[in-house]
């Protein structure tokens, strides 16, 4: 039995979709952020496995993942700062707090 590309893509895809699901359904902002991390992580996996399986001679995919991790870290930090600020004002971090502006 060979480990094929597909076999690695399936968990990544599921991870991604879980992220989507989580984003849409969760109420807690941090939970939503966690879902986002799942999505970003899935993208990283994709890059890496594509690189390794299809273009083993180069390392572009790997480098992309490398930078993506850095970016994800930066994003997370910023979002958490914002969440904490929201918490300061609204005293909770329910996503439904963020519907003051609409229509």
């Amino acid at each position, binding site marked *: 039995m060979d480990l094929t590309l597909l076999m690695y893509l399936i968990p990544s895809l599921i991870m991604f979709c879980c992220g989507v699901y989580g984003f849409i359904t969760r109420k807690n902002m941090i939970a*939503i952020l966690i879902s986002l991390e799942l999505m970003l992580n899935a993208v990283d996996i994709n890059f890496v496995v594509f690189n390794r399986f299809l273009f083993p001679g180069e390392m572009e995919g790997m480098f*992309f993942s490398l930078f993506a991790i850095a970016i994800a870290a930066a994003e997370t930090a910023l979002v958490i700062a914002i969440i904490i600020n929201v918490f300061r004002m*609204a005293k909770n971090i329910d996503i439904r707090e963020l519907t003051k502006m609409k229509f």
Partner: protein
Amino acid sequence: MDYSQFLSMPQEIGLVAVFLLVFLYDTFMSKKVQNALPVFTCVVFGLFTIANVFFCEESCSIFGGMFENTQATVAIKAILNIGMLIVLIQSVKWANSEYMTVRRGEFYELLLITLFGMYFMISARHFLMFVIGLETASLPLAALIAFEKNRYESHEAAAKYMFTAIFSSAIFMMGLSFVYALSGSLYFSDIAAMIFGESSTLLIVALAFVIAGVGFKLSLVPFHLWTADVYQGAPTPVTGYLSVISKGAAAFGFMVILVQVFGSVYTVAWKWMMYALIVLTIILGNLFAIRQRNMKRFLAFSSVSQAGYIMLGVVAANEMGLASLMYYVLVYVLSNLAAFGVIGAIENKTGKVMMSDYDGLRSTNPWLSFAMMLAMFSLAGIPPFAGFFSKFFIFAGALSTGDVALYVLVLIALLNTIISLYYYLLVVKAMFINKPGENGAIETFKSACSERLAMIVCVLGIMLVGIVSCIYTYLVDAAETSSALFNIF
């Protein structure tokens, strides 16, 4: 290791220098002169903007083709610089308000960094570079949006912006991973060569994800839903910045990606995708805008539909489309910033942002209403103001392909200008025709020098940019020297 390549990107270097100057001034200058920081920034950035005009170096492609400067990129960056300068001047008053004193240094630093990110979006010829540019352009913006700490809306807007931005960048990168799977490279030129003739499902999905990712920045329908809330929540100078500068940069970058990378699937796929998006964007943007009574929200939806018009230049996918796109961005920058200038001035003074507050403004503040009217007319595309010319050229650009489908598209867009005219006229009506409401019109006030200066620049721009034809001519030249972009066609 040829580090001299950095010298081929003087605009970025210059911008970093400006950033450092501001940073150092903010950090090390004494309290006494701290109040001059906004003016200092304006002056330095102004010098930088002017200097840019004189240091237009030759086109170059550096870092192994990762970064490219052409006359077109120089031009669009110059346009963004002008917009940035106007935003900086407009915000002097705001930045000098008591509340802002402690963080105005950061305000300018963040603004400059965002601009830096946009430079990269424009010049990047490698997807990693593009993503970094995109993130650099959007992440600090979230901080800027959340700048007004004691306004809840500000935070709500920041949160909305951030969540959507990360989600969209996840989608975008997902798309990129597919592209990578297809081509094995992230260099634009390599990808284009690799996917030539390819029209697999994966490519289409990748394309859709890429469009969605950048469409988020441009707020194309259906990727636009964050726009209104964020515009409303953000501090007005930031809203102005968000609505024009970041949109302009994204539009250019978008065009480069679609044309250079995906040029080979133009007719098969993305022409139609963009077609659908443009129709949706223009129509829905307009429909949403009709009902808005908050000026900032109103302009948000107006800018959504304007984005649709800008995209007409993209679907044209030729030199003329590119030139018209840049021209449109320039005019749009001036017009929209004029509008935001007025809104900002009034908000600074009275805190009022509803359209009904503007009733009878003409009788108390004739010049403000005049500037606002010009902005509205320009946005609506009424001659002899610049907006007319930009609309005309963007339509002409789209039609220059001779494609019958585009005629239909342009027709739809043109018919939608009627709706847009309707709501722009609503503002004019409020100011000029309506009688002041129960609380009376906004009282007469003298806006700050800086605000007036910015307004004058915008108004002059609105009046002259159209009639003075050399600007458009220059942009066409610039686009034509970048015709390597269109090689694939």
